[in-house]
């Protein structure tokens, strides 16, 4: 009898796939260390395996937490996350962005924790209102909650991670039932940001926004605010561009034109594509990727772990991993859909957005669809705190799945 099983891990398919991907990730990190030249990556798989064990323990513990209690602890978690981010800015370390807090041998990235905390707070905000917002002005708490960590992480500076908060914000608003029209208006300044590099395109976009505001007969103040936000984005983008760290500018430029400087900024992208492309249908075999072995592929254990998968297991390996992710994400949305509680449902959808953003950003970057942001691939990339947070997030989802099942 199923009722007699006290320990319920929720959705067994999601759990099996996540565990499978994580074990596969340890294997890939082992492979990433198999090189022709001495590398710090060699042997690092054992650390990842240790983190995986810790993460599974954390998962088991987190699975016992009731969702109600989670809702209650949300504000303190958020405050803790913000304090962590402030601490990183003060005493953090890391090459490139300063995103690490180090306690002796153990390093932790508060930004990972902040993602989960922000999801929880946004979910509370969504749950707090009975119905979706009438006016954009009502959305200010959402924007503030997402903006604080966003700005703190931008200051590290870590553009990619910061962008994840925008994805989470949009997801929360979307899930709150905000009308698509309003959602479009909220997103419009971000589009302005991207289009500001081309004045004619930006002008057309601005005209479209105005026309849209007129047709939907939006509130005047709201309309003015949206237009102003768009104009501001268009105007500030150049100073913001200049304020970006050089490596960030170079990465964005390299994404637009990788062959312009194949030995320099375009190197990562080109070598990643060569690794993946040379994999063919079935790949070069486990640990045998030459791009990786001979150190042509940079960051092979973190940012470009997926390129190692592509090189060593080919297109078939890639499709299997992508399918696993698709099934996991698909099922999380199903869980979110079927959960009647607004808080619970929004948390699930927020975690969905968090993983989807990472998946698309990381995989897209290895094949040149997206700029190099340095976002890790969930469960596969090397990184303890990210794995831990992912497993805690998983526990929350599995708890929902089991609560819904037992409660429903």
């Amino acid at each position, binding site marked *: 009898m199923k009722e007699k099983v006290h320990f319920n891990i929720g959705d067994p398919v999601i759990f099996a796939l996540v565990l499978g991907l994580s074990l596969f990730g340890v294997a890939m990190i082992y492979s990433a260390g198999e090189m022709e030249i001495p590398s710090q990556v060699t042997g690092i798989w054992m650390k990842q395996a240790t983190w995986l064990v810790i993460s599974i323990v954390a998962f088991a513990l987190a699975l016992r937490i009731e969702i109600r209690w989670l809702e209650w602890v949300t504000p303190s978690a958020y405050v803790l996350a913000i304090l962590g981010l402030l601490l990183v800015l003060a005493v953090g370390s890391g090459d490139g962005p300063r995103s690490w807090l180090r306690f002796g041998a153990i390093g932790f990235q508060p930004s990972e924790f902040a993602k989960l905390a922000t999801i929880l707070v946004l979910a509370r905000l969504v749950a707090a209102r009975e119905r979706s917002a009438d006016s954009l002005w009502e959305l200010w708490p959402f924007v503030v909650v997402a903006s604080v960590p966003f700005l703190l992480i931008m200051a590290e500076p870590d553009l990619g991670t910061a962008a994840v908060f925008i994805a989470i914000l949009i997801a929360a608003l979307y899930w709150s039932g905000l*009308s698509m029209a309003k959602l479009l208006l909220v997103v419009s300044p971000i589009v302005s940001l991207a289009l500001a590099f081309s004045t004619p395109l930006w002008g057309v976009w601005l005209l479209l926004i105005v026309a849209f505001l007129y047709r939907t007969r939006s509130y005047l103040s709201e309309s003015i605010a949206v237009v102003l936000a768009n104009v501001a984005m268009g105007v500030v983008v150049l100073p913001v561009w200049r304020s970006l760290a050089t490596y960030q500018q170079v990465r964005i430029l390299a994404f637009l034109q990788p062959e312009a400087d194949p030995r320099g900024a375009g190197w990562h992208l080109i070598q990643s594509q*060569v690794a993946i492309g040379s994999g063919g249908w079935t790949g070069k075999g486990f640990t045998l990727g030459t*791009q990786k072995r001979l150190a042509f592929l940079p960051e092979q254990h973190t940012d470009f772990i997926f390129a190692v998968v592509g090189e060593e297991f*080919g*297109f078939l390996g890639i499709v299997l991993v992508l399918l696993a992710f698709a099934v996991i994400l698909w099922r999380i949305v199903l869980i979110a859909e079927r959960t009647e509680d607004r808080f619970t*449902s929004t948390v699930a959808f927020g975690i969905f957005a968090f993983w989807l953003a990472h998946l*698309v950003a990381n995989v897209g970057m290895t094949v040149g669809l997206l700029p190099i942001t340095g976002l890790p691939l969930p469960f596969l990339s090397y990184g303890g705190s990210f794995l831990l947070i992912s497993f805690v997030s998983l526990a929350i989802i599995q708890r929902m799945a089991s609560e819904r099942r037992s409660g429903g």
Partner: protein
Amino acid sequence: MSSINVPPEAQFRGRGRLARWLVALLILALTIQFFRIQILKHTTYALRSDENRIRELPIPAPRGTIYDRNGLVIVENVPGYSIAVLPLSVDSLRVVLDTLASILGHSTEKVERLMDNYRQHPNRPVTVESDASFAEVSIIEERRAVLPGGIVIEAAPKRHYLMGDTLAHVLGYVGEIGDSELELAEFEGYEPGRTIGQTGIERVYERVLAGTPGIRFVEVNALGRLVGEFRGRQTEPAVPGRDLVLNVDLELQRRAAELFPDTMAGAVVALEPRTGAVLAMYSAPSFDPNVFIGRFEPAEWRALNTDPGRPLFNRAISAGYAPGSTFKLVLAGIAMSLGEASRETEMRIPCRGALQYYSRVFHDWTPAGHGVLDLSGAIRESCDVYFYQLGIKLTLNRVLEEVPNFGFGTPTGIDLPSELSGIFPPDTAWYTRRYGRRGWTNSVVLNLAIGQGENVQSPLKMAQYFSALAADGTLPVPRVSRDGPVSEPGFELPLSDEQLAVLRSALVDVVNSETGTARGSRLRRWTLAGKTGTSQNPHGDDHAWFVGFAPAEDPRIVIAMIVENGGHGSSAAAPIVSRLIDFYLERQSVEGLTAEAAGR
């Protein structure tokens, strides 16, 4: 459209479906992109992945050994090291080259030249030093850990010329192929950094001696460091060059170099009259071809190039001198072939030390004069007055017409580069072009008749002509290499055997008669025949000629020698030629006897 009044759960449902489709769409988009890269563009990326890591390293092919006619080694290979760099980029190459420059002592120009090589051929290893010393190689190996990646040290056989300056001009030397040479059809398929024969036999028989370099496929990592052999492709081994046996007799060559007056310039050429085999060829001053091998100091090159003695210049084949009295044999030949003279023909005016022709007086080499002489006597005593009159008798037009029939004005066709084809006026229009209509008279024929004036021939050409006289009237094509391509049939002199015998016996008299000009050079054991000559030199002392052969009854060797500013052929050249011929024939007979004894 407004979702305000939709119940929460239904609202999640609609949005959830959209989100799920978004997932499907994104995964599909990514899959398509992977399909494009991994399947559609697989070949391109697989190639790039190979190009990334696989480098082709040439394996130098050892050049063929060169032997003399008796099997003695003249040129061989000795072990050496070459240093090459597998560059990653212009910047990294510069770092490597600058580092190596301090170890190898390279100049900045050399570094720039190597950078240019790389820019032109970015996928090839850059040969930094084709001849590194063991000490330099040791330094690099010791510091390998701190040196930038991509430095490859390989065994590279290097050329060693055992004879030093004794046989320099014939052998030539090897060196790295230059940009201009790369464009020649001769060097099709050659790559920069290859060592090629620059001149001499090394150049002419490049395709025989060079062999084909092999290719080794190695794997490098992203730092350009060599990881090891690439097992995916078989090493293509080098095909060594073929050996070459020369006609040169090393002992004779050595003797010629020894006997040549130390401070003088000039040349010696020894031929086998029937075959044209080049038994010896020496040009003074000479040089040591070993200075061109490997580490090559621009200062040494400049010194050799700017030396007023022009040591790199092969006087035996490339220098031109007025043939002087040696050319009287050509005039005599023309006269006999036209039926204008025979052995007994005497001239109208006996020699009184000079001849007046219109308003000009033409002197004999001896003021005392030679009296009445026949053709044979005129050759023996080298009587200028006789030949002045013979020239007048033949007329300028006929002399100009006939000289080419005796092989002059065309190169001998020797298997060496830069042969002088010789200068002889083709017709009287040539004089008009050169001196103007009134700038010359028919009296030029008097000068031509005694081998002076507008007549420039190489020592090799004179040796070839005398070979024809010594043998059967056939001008042999001189051959340095025994294994070279078969030469075209020689050029035939328009003289009968009797007429050749007349000339030969006159040449015997030159050396062996009481009144012969080279009487001092006669040999006890062999009948030496030959002709002295003096090439008038407006810039200084006259050049001394002697062309001789022996034994006169059955000539086995012809030697032509010129000593620049040596004065008279009888004193400066004839005695040396005589000793060389004696040396050669003596050795041959000893060897013959030994062989005979061994055969029995």
